[in-house]
């Protein structure tokens, strides 16, 4: 008994050691290539590193103190919130609608789903350039088309909400397929029997959807929303290419504002402090996502 138990214990020990060995390369890679720049970012955020003004290597909380009184930062958070909320809502709505619609399409028309997936395959820089051309009145076929009927389409990139709308449209175009994929996956997991049973019981389709389908989709919807929300904190190519933060400063989202501070105003330390703030926000949300995901992984 004891010998055998000891043997098994030894085997378990070996097994666990095996598992740990499998993790070593990943740990090393993460340590070198992620932790080092991360530590650098935190160090810089407490420094006074400025490319032009000169640097005394004095450390303190001055950058964070400055953030509290920075109106442009407040504006950037407001812009970021608008872009994130509108974009994520549009992506989840359109993604769900297409997913539900595609479920009904069977047979050879199924290949048509590639048309809906295609925007997801276009790199963001190209997405931004394509939509920039569509929002440029002198070039855009949309403007030309409505001109034929004597309708002048207003220029989007010249007003704050127009520019935000333009970025949201571009962002939605390329990212709704992600929401669509996840929701399609979740729909596959829902047994059609449930919906049928409800229909036989005389429930209307809308009621069926609200009371049966939606609750079953809820985890997927939440997951999509959170994922897209965190991703939207790092909006960069769309703003960089489409508006450069304009008109005025009205589309300088926080991530872009950190870039402006670092590269245009040469205030690397302050840019890093803003990046730290964004990092902490991402940390908060990903904590929540990890909690949600715990059920799956354990």
């Amino acid at each position: 008994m004891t010998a055998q138990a000891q043997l098994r214990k030894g085997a378990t020990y070996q097994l666990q050691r095996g598992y740990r060995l499998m993790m070593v390369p990943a740990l090393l890679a993460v340590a070198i290539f992620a932790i080092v720049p991360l530590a650098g970012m935190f160090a810089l955020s407490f420094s006074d590193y400025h490319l032009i003004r000169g640097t005394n290597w004095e450390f303190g909380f001055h950058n964070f103190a400055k953030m509290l009184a920075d109106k442009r930062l407040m504006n950037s958070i407001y812009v970021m919130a608008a872009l994130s909320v509108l974009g994520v809502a549009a992506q989840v709505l359109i993604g769900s609608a297409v997913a539900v619609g595609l479920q009904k399409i069977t047979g050879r028309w199924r290949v048509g789903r590639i048309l809906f997936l295609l925007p997801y395959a276009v790199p963001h820089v190209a997405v931004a350039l394509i939509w920039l051309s569509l929002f440029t009145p002198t070039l855009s076929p949309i403007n030309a088309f409505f001109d034929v009927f004597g309708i002048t389409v207003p220029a989007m990139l010249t007003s704050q909400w127009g520019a935000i709308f333009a970025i949201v449209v571009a962002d939605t175009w390329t990212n709704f397929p992600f929401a669509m994929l996840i929701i399609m996956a979740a729909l596959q997991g829902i047994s059609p029997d449930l919906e049928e049973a409800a229909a036989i019981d005389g429930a209307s389709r809308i009621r069926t959807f609200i009371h049966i389908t939606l609750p079953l989709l809820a985890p997927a919807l939440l997951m999509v929303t959170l994922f897209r929300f965190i991703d939207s904190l790092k909006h960069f190519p769309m703003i960089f290419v489409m508006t450069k933060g304009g008109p005025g400063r009205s589309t300088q989202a926080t991530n872009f504002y950190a870039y402006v501070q670092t590269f245009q105003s040469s205030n690397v330390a302050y840019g890093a402090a803003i990046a730290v703030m964004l990092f902490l926000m991402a940390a908060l949300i990903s904590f929540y996502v990890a909690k949600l995901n715990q059920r799956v992984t354990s």
Partner: protein
Amino acid sequence: MIDNSRQFHNRRRFGLAMMITLLVFAALPTVWVLVLSFRAPVAIFEPIWESPTALTLQNFYKITRSDFPAALLNSFITAGLSTTFAMLVGVPAGFALAKARLSGKFIASWVLLLLRMAPPVGFVIPLFLLYANSGLIDTYLGLVFAYMTLTLPLVTWSMWNSFAQVPDELIEAAIMDDASLAKAFFLIALPAARPGAVAAAILAFLVAWNDFFYALIITRSGTTTAPVAVMNFISYDSVDWASIAVASIALTLPILPLMALANRYIVQSLSGAVKG
């Protein structure tokens, strides 16, 4: 009953109309890029119906003579290598995280997610200084390592989820039968998690292929990737829209077959992750 069927038809019609609208939204930019890529330079600012014959292949020819093809190759090399390395390192790690008895698993999953999601704007200066020290600026290796900060957490995290779906008993039984851990991993766990692995590899490739920011900062002429090279068509006093359109097509085409082949796998693997 009659009412019911009319309602049914109305709903169908509404659904169809909605799908068509969304299809137009999804497809319009694609059609537009195709048109733009064939437009003769003199007619680029005219609506297509005013000069429908002003089409040319010149734009495609022109781009083959620019720096763009080399940049496309760089994108392939760096996205491909970073995906390969991330898979080599991340798949075993995901397996171990899913099956090992460990404390602190929650922290690990949080850190992985956070690394995948943190905005890179704060990383680039420290990363740049690190690279300047070690001569990694404008090297494939440097860019591959930078991309691994994106791809490795993604692969590890999603493989962890995929391996979690593989019943523990399967692995335990194999090990009871005197199989080594490596054997159990390669012969039992990996085949069972294949859809997840394919999906992870494709998503990782996409993330690296898509990157603009890292490439902007740590590449020079030698390793410029395609997303950065596209920006070179915007010059001091003109924007070369036709070349931008051709370049956008060239950037998307390689991804398209991947997406078509893989959307089944992606749905399969995601459905595991989102089951409540």
